[in-house]
């Protein structure tokens, strides 16, 4: 094992992550005249969750009545009353006043018709727009931002994985970073750290998170002592394609389609439609209702979680699919005729609404100097436009801090410990052993079997046992196929496997704390929404090798009518 001291790079602000929040933060720090270094595990704007943003929402914040109506909808249907409406209001205003104008200046093409009107659904109050087609908006946004970052020569390290946050006496002093191409671990010392690693966590066999999103950001923050919040608020997708495996992230959008008020139908094994958004005209959010209706079909034996049900566009005019749906070409490529054929779907682990506990006015975390904008924060965003707001205010805070403090002293023992940990993961696979990718696969299977949409105390306890078994039995048998330092993804995945184990255990333990069901979170042993006791956030903090929990009241601007509602049949 190499004991040489790692190289140290100094900067004012380090930004971890190459999605929309990270880019907005990095551009803002650069524009403020400070030194920034952006570190991306994949490729900026081409990996991570931002590229999957499908629908964009126009805002109407200039009309107070309209704004209030929208806030109430977001509170009830968007977050089951857990989100802070004050945050949503600020993010919406930023979206309208800054994000859309800036992106349009960069060349973002929100689809228009031949008269120049923005193309939306017939239900214009939903306000969905697309760039340029439904299902491609995030990819186009990130491509424009990527080119902006490269052309402005923002200092950027791609295919570089941050492995730990270096915290000394409760203050972040920098990060350790691993250059995947050359296999070198080094230290970035900074006055402020912006962590923008996104909401995605590829913790189950089918996940919408991209390949590299293995919960590294959450895991490193937790290990560094940051407060974590609401990780149990895990969103699933009900309508992602079942096959091929590689396409598990291909989403059948359940929102109203462009130039119509029609939306995707879900069909059971019997071929009959059992859900579409139009069945609940008041509700603007199809996702959690899809899941609950699917669950009821599974209970009736008319669907399986992993492929025994279907999405259908057979009732939608073919030219709408042809002209406005980016995904239509995918179905055609597989030989489906959308006017006749139904598409087999499966349930997919999506993003978490929780994350590193943040103050949504500053993006500050419980660690001084560490800011967590975007999906990896705990303020439950789920919109590419909102995270641009997060990145901007996080950058302002980080700049203010960087101007007022000097370069910190590094915690040498942590640097050495991390250096040893990372290099210990370059151990070759023992005879009969497993590649790190195989251990990751096992972790994902456990989560799929026992931490799916329908949870119970017994299954979660069993999942913890299985994960402990992976730690005790499989981790020692895990090793890399080659000890080369050149683009050795086994090495990266060995680090991922540890992060995933930490994060899966934490997610399960937080899920066990919440003794009710809400939003996307369903416990069959507590199958009701308990507004009396559980309009609360779950907060977790590492204490030695254990974890401590506490609960804080959710922001009470809007309140549900009932104290208790039946989870599966409630409309929020």
């Amino acid at each position, binding site marked *: 094992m190499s004991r040489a001291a790692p190289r140290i790079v100094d900067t004012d602000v380090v930004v971890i992550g190459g999605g929309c929040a990270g880019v907005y933060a990095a551009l803002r720090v650069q524009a403020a005249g400070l030194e920034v270094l952006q570190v991306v595990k994949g490729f900026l704007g081409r990996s991570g969750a931002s590229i999957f943003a499908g629908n964009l929402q126009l805002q109407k914040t200039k009309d107070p009545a309209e704004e209030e109506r929208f806030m109430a909808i977001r509170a009830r249907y968007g977050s089951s009353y857990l989100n802070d409406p004050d945050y949503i209001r600020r993010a919406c205003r930023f979206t309208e006043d800054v994000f859309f104008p800036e992106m349009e200046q960069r060349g973002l093409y929100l689809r228009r018709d031949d008269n120049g009107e923005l193309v939306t659904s017939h239900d214009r109050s939903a306000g969905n727009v697309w760039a340029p087609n439904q299902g491609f908006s995030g990819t186009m946004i990130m491509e424009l931002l990527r080119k902006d970052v490269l052309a402005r020569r923002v200092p950027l390290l791609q295919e570089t994985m941050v492995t730990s946050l270096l915290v000394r006496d409760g203050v972040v002093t920098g990060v350790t970073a691993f250059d995947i191409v050359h296999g070198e671990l080094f230290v970035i010392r900074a006055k402020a750290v912006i962590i923008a690693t996104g909401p995605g966590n590829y913790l189950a066999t089918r996940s919408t998170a991209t390949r590299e999103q293995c919960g590294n950001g959450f895991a490193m923050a937790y290990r560094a002592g940051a407060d974590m919040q609401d990780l149990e608020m895990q969103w699933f997708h009900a309508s992602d394609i079942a096959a091929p495996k*590689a396409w598990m992230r291909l989403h059948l959008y359940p929102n109203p389609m462009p130039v119509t008020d029609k939306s995707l139908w879900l069909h059971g094994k019997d071929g009959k439609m059992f859900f579409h958004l139009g069945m609940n005209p008041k509700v603007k959010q199809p996702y959690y209702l899809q899941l609950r209706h699917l669950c009821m079909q599974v209970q009736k034996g008319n669907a399986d979680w992993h492929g025994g049900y279907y999405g259908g566009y057979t009732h939608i005019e073919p030219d709408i699919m042809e002209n406005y749906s980016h995904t239509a070409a*995918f179905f055609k490529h597989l030989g489906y005729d959308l006017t006749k054929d139904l598409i087999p779907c499966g349930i997919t682990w999506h993003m978490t609404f929780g994350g590193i506990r943040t103050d949504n006015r500053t993006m500050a975390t419980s660690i001084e100097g560490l800011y967590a904008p975007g999906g990896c924060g705990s303020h439950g965003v789920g919109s590419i436009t909102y995270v641009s707001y997060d990145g901007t205010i996080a950058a302002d805070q980080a700049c203010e801090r960087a101007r007022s403090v000097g370069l910190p002293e590094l915690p040498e023992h942590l640097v050495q410990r991390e250096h040893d940990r990372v290099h210990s993961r370059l151990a070759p696979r023992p005879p009969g052993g497993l590649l790190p*990718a*195989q251990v990751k696969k096992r972790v994902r299977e456990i989560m799929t079997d026992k931490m799916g949409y329908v949870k119970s105390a017994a299954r979660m306890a069993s999942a913890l046992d299985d994960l402990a078994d992976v730690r005790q039995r499989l981790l020692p048998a895990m090793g890399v196929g080659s000890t080369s330092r050149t683009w050795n*993804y086994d090495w990266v995945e060995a680090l991922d496997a540890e992060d995933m184990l930490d994060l899966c255990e934490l997610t399960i333990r937080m899920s066990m704390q919440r003794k009710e069901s809400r939003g996307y979170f369903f416990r069959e042993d507590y199958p009701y929404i308990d507004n009396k006791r559980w309009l609360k956030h779950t907060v977790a903090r590492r204490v030695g090798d254990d974890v401590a929990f506490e609960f804080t009241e959710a922001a009470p601007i809007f309140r549900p009518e009932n104290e208790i509602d039946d989870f599966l049949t409630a409309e929020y």
Partner: protein
Amino acid sequence: MDAPVHVAPVPPREPTTDVTPRFRARIFRFDPATDATPRFDAVEVPCEPHMRVLDVLDHAVEECGLSIGYRYFCGIKRCGMCGVNVNGKAVLACWEAATPDMVIEPLGNMPVIRDLIVDRSAFEQATVDLEPRLVRKTPYTSFPEVYTHRDVAATFPLMNCIECYVCSSTCPAVPGPHPGAHGREGQRGFVGPGTLVQIAKVALHPKDELDRSGMLENASIDHCMSCYRCEQVCPVGIPIVSHAIMPLRGLAAKGPAGKARFPLDFADNVRTHVDIHSGSLFVKAKGWVRALASVPLVLRMLMRGKTRLFSRPSARAKREVNALFKAAGS
């Protein structure tokens, strides 16, 4: 190093009692840090519904325990990072259907980092150097800007490009694994179709106001020989030649240094003379000094009837040629 073109030896087929159809793949392995030459690993994988090449690679790692280096992030044609050659054709692994017998190799025209991973940075740098951003001179007014879908007709077909550079990897006009390197007089080697699509996206945008002709006349666009191989391999079906390269060639031809104006001179020549009049085309393209130095050649050509001093097109022929130019839209 360049991706080798040789085909790997076929391992003997094992007798099997399993009736599941199986796909066989030979996968390129090379680590410049440890290997003197590349080798191929062979795998057999059970066929799955709608199986993609990417599924085969995943299976090779997760089930067969091979530690193959391959790059991808999304699996659904967004990240543009899973380009490979399959049986000699450049494809995206997530998009291409797996087939019973495959040889999977890295993309061409780029240095191999390891196994199937290539270094894309030369193409990406060429894109950045040619200003891939919209440049406005007129101040932006307010959101949403006033324009119609018809106004973006030229760029709309390009918007789905995901910068996978699969097209550039297969382009015969790209000069090897170091495309876009600067040569004499600021002229750079052909930057490849992928980069030109990025530039066309902004150059043809109705709100772009940067005069790109000076940059483009140095980009050796005329090295493109319109072989359409880029369009054949494009995983998103972009009409690259007609909607990106041709319009940019038109812009380059108007460049201030006149380095790429040959197509205009050629068209003028045909328009004026109805046929190609090589003498005047030579003078126009190379100047009088070069033309005078070539007098002996011109004399030989005249003597052998290869060129004429004057052209005498009929009025009817001129009308017909002009009609053709009009029909072709120029």
